[in-house]
């Protein structure tokens, strides 16, 4: 019974597809999965926009939107209608074809990443051997659309914004990749399904998630920072900062195309959080051994929701970093920590089982973190100050 609940979507798909003749069943199964993914994630996006506005509102001691529907749940409907009915303005000197294609490229490449994410037991669309590689290939393609948007607008400010955004995304792409390589080294495979299965064991009731190891925790933190920067979220959202010069690379977009950019950004957040939970948080595996009766897809989407809440929390709290500080941070802090992490995970496997490897690896990482942090702050002479009073 529990097993059937866990596999309910797979069973539903098989039942639906069973109505077709044999040779069409495989293709039809893929089509059904694709339709479900394309329908599910935008719905989650709608829910997340409401959650974000209400969450940030509550952080600021106010209610969020609560007029449209109970507790404001139908607010995305209102926003959707608004963006659909707005006039679609394309500047006359803009490159019309590229201007039209940019949001489409964004949305398509972002959805492609979901093809390899295991959303539950046996619930992955394509079980590739090099799934992680495919995911990163698609993720890097999203940067193309940002540049297309900035270039085609023929507006020097959006070009500036686009170039800043691309520089930021490229720097943090390196950090993202390196922080996931440690997981590949530990699991021994690029396939996301195998990575989740490697984490799905329990010792004394606690799971073998990679986040519970020193190198996994460091990797997860670096991954989280890089993921926030990749999706242009606070505190790394200078390219779309409103209080800077102009609104960045999507200045010249209005109406539905703007909504598509918005959709692309949020779905990219889901996708990257999904990958993060797959790599470090065990994907669809339960946190405690006696909770395995809860269906696996509930755990996956629960972890996704928690990641969204953390993103929203960060957005409501932190001011944004300036562009050069952002890049300095990427190349001078995140990247060295990731490289050190590679060394540490190799050391982990070399030392073998036991308490020694925990001690050695934790010590190396903590010392490196404190050292680099202290050195970075003191070189720029940043720090707490004391103030004197006139006498």
């Amino acid at each position: 019974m529990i097993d059937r609940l866990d596999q309910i979507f797979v069973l539903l798909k098989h039942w639906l597809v069973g109505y077709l003749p044999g040779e069409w069943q495989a293709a039809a199964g893929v089509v059904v999965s694709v339709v479900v993914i394309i329908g599910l994630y935008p719905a989650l996006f709608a829910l997340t926009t409401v959650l974000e506005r209400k969450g940030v509102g509550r952080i600021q001691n106010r209610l969020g939107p609560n007029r449209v529907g109970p507790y404001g749940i139908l607010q995305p409907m209102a926003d959707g209608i608004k963006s659909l009915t707005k006039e679609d303005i394309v500047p006359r000197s803009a490159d019309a074809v590229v201007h039209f294609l940019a949001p489409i490229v964004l949305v398509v490449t972002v959805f492609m990443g979901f093809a390899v994410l295991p959303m539950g037991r046996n619930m992955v669309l394509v079980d590739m051997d090099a799934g992680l590689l495919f995911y990163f290939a698609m993720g890097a393609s999203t940067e193309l659309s940002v540049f297309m948007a900035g270039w085609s607008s023929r507006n020097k400010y959006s070009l500036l914004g686009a170039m800043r955004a691309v520089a930021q995304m490229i720097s943090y792409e390196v950090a993202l990749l390196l922080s996931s390589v440690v997981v590949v080294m530990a699991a021994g495979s690029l396939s996301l399904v195998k990575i989740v299965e490697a984490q799905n064991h329990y010792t004394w009731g606690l799971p073998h998630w990679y986040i519970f190891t020193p190198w996994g925790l460091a990797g997860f933190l670096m991954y989280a920072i890089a993921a926030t920067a990749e999706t242009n979220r606070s505190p790394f959202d200078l390219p779309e900062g409103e209080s800077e010069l102009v609104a960045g690379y999507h200045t010249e977009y209005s109406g539905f195309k703007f909504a598509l950019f918005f959709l692309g950004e949020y779905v990219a957040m889901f996708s990257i959080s999904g990958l993060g939970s797959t790599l470090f948080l065990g994907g669809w595996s339960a946190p405690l051994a006696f909770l395995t009766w809860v269906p696996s897809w509930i755990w996956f989407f629960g972890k996704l929701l928690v990641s969204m809440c953390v993103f929203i929390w960060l957005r409501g709290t932190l001011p944004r970093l300036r562009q050069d500080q952002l890049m300095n941070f990427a190349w001078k802090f995140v990247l060295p920590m990731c490289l050190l992490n590679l060394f540490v995970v190799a050391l982990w496997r070399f030392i073998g089982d036991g308490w020694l490897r925990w001690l050695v690896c934790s010590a190396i990482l903590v010392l490196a973190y404190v050292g680099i942090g202290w050195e970075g702050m003191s070189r720029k002479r940043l720090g707490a100050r004391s103030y004197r009073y006139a006498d």
Partner: protein
Amino acid sequence: MLGEGILKGLAETAKNFAGSFVSKERMTTVEYPEERLPLPEASRNFPFLVYDGSDWQAGLRCVACQICEKECPPKCIYIEKSKDKKPDYVGKLQIYPTKFDIDISVCMSCQICVEVCPFEAIKMNNEFELATDNRFGGLLLDRKELAKSNEYYHQIHPTEAAEVDARLAAEKAKAEAKAKAAADAAAAKAAGAPATPTPVAKPSEGERKS
């Protein structure tokens, strides 16, 4: 340690988020127009003219002295005097305004007209939901719209209205005492010298409820 300040900030925000569900201090939204905050008593918005009794024309306190028109900083008051007179609250005959317009799109709610009025005739109202879509005169309030009763004044500014009433009653008592003294003196004089016809104009005692 790097990141400590950020973590402290995150903790602060989380405290506010959790607190917004439980404490009033951390959820300060008042959902207007379903809920309204009570306005403090001293709150002022635009002026209005006070009248005593139930007939706004007969009981209007304003005697068209035009002091408020002169002192108004943005000059938003326009007064036209009457040709005839009517009795005021002590019974003396005074002129009254036939036109008293205040343009509330110009008025800056400074309350100087209230301060300089010697007759307690103009006071500050606290009504603020006055938006209108008539741009030609929708915000020009005339004498009828401005006149509100003394009971209304008591409702919106109770302590102030009580003080004003006490002052007016004292004035009235003083005026009546003076009139009685004058009448007694005149009667004494008339009794003392019956030959000389002294025209004594007794002020008509307008008995009025205030």
